[in-house]
């Protein structure tokens, strides 16, 4: 048994998939640059309005209905006017106003995304898939009856899965791939043709369905533009000939004498007749499943604020997650690319090379890329949306957005066996949002795990991302008394940055200090030193080159210091505290860098 998934009006479906509100409207997809833009595809509502493929936008817009007038409810109206409104309302009840036609420019990126989504659904159903055309796929369902049930049940499941990625499809099922394809392209909804009934069921289909798929069946052999043109010409000739003969459906063509048809139309005629009878078997050209997940959206008008952008991101994320769900995968890395509105180049370019370089630079400048590395694989569109919102709020694009791509690096979803006695740990999804919000409050790289560096340099550490290690945990009880310590260690409280002080020395030992920082919080660093111990001389990283002022704390920088531990009786009262102070041998200044607590 073979199945064919066909998406009618595919360019329209690809756009409606991203904008679900368009389902209620007549949509015309235009191709080409204005003013030569012509209608490339239409949905059913558009055809009902009278629009046709090949019309210019001006011609098509004539068929677009005007918006009905709206009367505010609070407005006071006269009796005569109210009668008019009532009449208009009655007329609209009997004759519903035609939906307004909406024009959209063709989007190859969105069509690619829709086709990839279709492939994902098909590959999740069966590995034997032929990528016949952007709007149709052929599936070999042989041997899947035990898994999915009867043929109608399989067709229903397939249609349901395709609709989960935002596409409406026709499903055709038959004993051979060509008959399944003709059934999907010719009939709407689900069509299951039992073996042996192909000729009878397909007989009523118009001959154009056959010729469309006939051309497309040979599409793989056609590579050049000239060949395509020649093929289309041949198709038109055959269609004209069959029209002149009065052959308008499959049944009439199937009844023609075989030899006479071959004598007049050649090999193509014989093949067409076999297809119209629903016979013939061919091997599917199977395609490999792709591991590239990307969704794109082109905007008619640029978006300037983050709020409307969030709605678009939500749509893209839902599509992306639906595709990943179809393949039973999760997201490890999420990359968002925003194309910003073009800026005018500052300088005029002269040569062609300069122009090319300038174009590349402009493209790079007009792309705003943000990447989210998730600590654990997850598939929660709401979480991703919140993370992207927080990230974009911290790193705004800086210009209106006219196109956006969202790509996901797939990973196997995490499988966790939770237990009743496992220690408490935050949920990974919630934790990511919490951390993103905290970063928004305190800044980047100020929340995470501290890793102590293997060096003698004081206060040497770097920050790493905090990850909830739910999978690594083992059941453990509360701390027993044997785990408690009778004498926990004394701890240091580091002053960041170290506080500048003035130290008075007596016989080489500090005897009094005063803070040079006028900050109100640091007044306690002033008074008489009761005891002192030191100096403890240390230095390091003198072998490294003298770093410039821009070097970060984690980079090696020569340091030297003479440390003293002191007990300070503050001038504020009878309070006594223990501090660590040091004399910087490089600058000659004194600093207080920690207190004992």
């Amino acid at each position, binding site marked *: 048994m073979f199945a064919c998934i066909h998406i009618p009006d595919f360019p329209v479906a690809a756009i409606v998939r991203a904008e679900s509100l368009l389902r209620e409207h007549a949509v015309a997809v235009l191709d080409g640059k204005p003013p030569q833009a012509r209608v490339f595809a239409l949905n059913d509502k558009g055809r009902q309005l009278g629009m046709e493929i090949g019309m210019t936008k001006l011609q098509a817009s004539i068929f677009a209905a005007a918006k009905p007038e709206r009367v505010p409810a609070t407005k006071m109206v006269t009796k005569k006017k109210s009668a008019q409104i009532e009449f208009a309302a009655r007329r609209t009840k009997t004759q519903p106003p035609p939906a307004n036609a909406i024009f959209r420019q063709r989007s190859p990126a969105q069509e690619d995304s829709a086709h990839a989504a279709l492939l994902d659904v098909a590959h999740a159903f069966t590995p034997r898939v032929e990528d016949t055309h952007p709007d149709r796929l052929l599936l070999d369902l042989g041997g899947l009856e035990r898994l999915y049930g009867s043929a109608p049940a399989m067709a229903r499941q397939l249609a349901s899965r395709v609709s989960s990625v935002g596409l409406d499809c026709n499903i055709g099922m038959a004993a051979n791939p060509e008959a399944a394809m003709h059934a999907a392209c010719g009939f709407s909804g689900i069509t299951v043709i039992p073996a042996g009934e192909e000729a009878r069921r397909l007989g009523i289909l118009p001959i154009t369905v056959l010729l469309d798929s006939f051309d497309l069946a040979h599409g793989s052999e056609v590579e050049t533009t000239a060949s395509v043109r020649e093929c289309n010409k041949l198709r038109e000739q055959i269609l004209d000939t069959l029209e002149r003969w009065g052959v308008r459906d499959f049944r009439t063509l199937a009844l023609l004498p075989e030899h006479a048809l071959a004598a007049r139309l050649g090999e193509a005629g014989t093949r067409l007749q076999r297809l119209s009878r629903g016979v013939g078997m061919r091997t599917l050209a199977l395609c490999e499943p792709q591991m590239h997940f990307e969704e794109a959206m082109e905007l008619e008008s640029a978006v300037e604020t983050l709020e409307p952008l969030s709605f678009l991101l939500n749509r893209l994320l839902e599509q992306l997650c639906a595709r990943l769900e179809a393949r039973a995968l999760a997201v490890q890395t999420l990359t968002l690319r925003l194309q910003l509105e073009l800026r005018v180049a500052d300088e005029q370019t002269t040569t062609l090379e300069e122009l090319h370089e300038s174009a590349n630079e402009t493209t790079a400048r007009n792309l705003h890329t943000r990447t989210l590395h998730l600590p654990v694989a997850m598939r929660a569109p709401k979480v991703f949306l919140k993370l992207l919102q927080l990230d974009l709020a911290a790193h705004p694009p800086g210009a209106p957005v006219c196109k956006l791509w969202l790509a996901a690096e797939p990973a196997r979803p995490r499988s966790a066996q939770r237990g009743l006695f496992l220690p408490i740990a935050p949920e990974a999804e919630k934790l990511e949002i919490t951390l993103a919000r905290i970063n928004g409050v305190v800044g980047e790289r100020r929340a995470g795990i501290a890793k102590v560096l293997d060096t003698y340099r004081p206060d040497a550490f770097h920050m790493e991302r905090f990850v909830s290690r739910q999978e690594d945990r083992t059941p453990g009880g509360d701390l027993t008394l044997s785990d408690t310590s009778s004498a926990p260690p004394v701890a240091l*409280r580091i002053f960041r940055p170290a506080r500048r002080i003035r130290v008075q020395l007596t016989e080489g030992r500090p005897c009094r200090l005063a803070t040079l920082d006028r900050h109100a919080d640091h007044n306690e660093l002033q008074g008489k030193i009761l*005891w002192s111990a030191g100096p403890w001389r240390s230095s390091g990283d003198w072998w490294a080159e003298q770093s410039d002022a821009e070097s970060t704390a984690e980079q090696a920088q020569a340091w030297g210091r003479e440390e003293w531990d002191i007990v300070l009786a503050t001038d504020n009262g009878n309070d006594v505290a223990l501090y660590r102070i040091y004399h910087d041998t490089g600058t000659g200044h004194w600093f207080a860098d920690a207190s004992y607590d």
Partner: protein
Amino acid sequence: MPSPAALRAHVESALGERLASTLLLREKAAPLTVSTGVAGLDALTGGLPRGALSEITGPASSGRTGVMLAALAGATHREEACALVDASDNFDPASAAAAGVDLDHLLWIRCGESDRASLRSTQRRTALGRLEQVLKITDLLLQGGGFGMVVLDLGDIPPESVRRVPLTSWFRFRRTVEPTATVLLIVEREPCAKTCASLVVRLQRTAVCARDAASPSEAEFHGWRVLSWTEPAIPPANAVSHAALLHGMQLRAEVVRSWTQRKPVQSVGADFELRAGW
């Protein structure tokens, strides 16, 4: 006239669908506690209550940080996720590692700086700006849930600034943490959460053990009892400080308030020691 038992049965059957226990006295179960990591404190307080707010107070160099690290060491030893909201960016990872804290299970949030343009530069440096950050972050952590222990380190924030935090904030934290198993611990100079705190412990130094007690008269003047220590002061490689004046501190802990115990607390105290890691 129906009997009280019959009347009670009638009322309970009428309201039984709407109320779980109509006339039954609901006894509040004793809260679960976890160890503070210090045997002396555990004996005194019974441990830190889960689902409640606890305070450890004391002046500078009174051992608050040592007790806080001991509690964190215990929680991370149980493989619980812990969070430290560091108001003044004073946390020393080396000290924590020496105290036995598993840093992989500790989320350290360093308040005090912000890249946000909305936060004014004057506000950024002040204690008030840092306190706002602390309150926001604590709200986020408690609402996110899943942490075994959340510690608010306000040890270097002046008490007059901490007192400005409205009581509603502490009440909100208490209500948020109540149905969870999280220990909310505040380290500060003076108690600030008032009735919202289930346990308040005050720490005081009673003595230090110093290597060089050169002038004991001055020490006695400041209320210090100096214990001599004559061991050689060569710190090991993993020492958190090099000079090593301090060998240890003797502390006295006093329970100011405890709602976890049946009887009202009347300033009971206990002595224990902190020892330097060198």
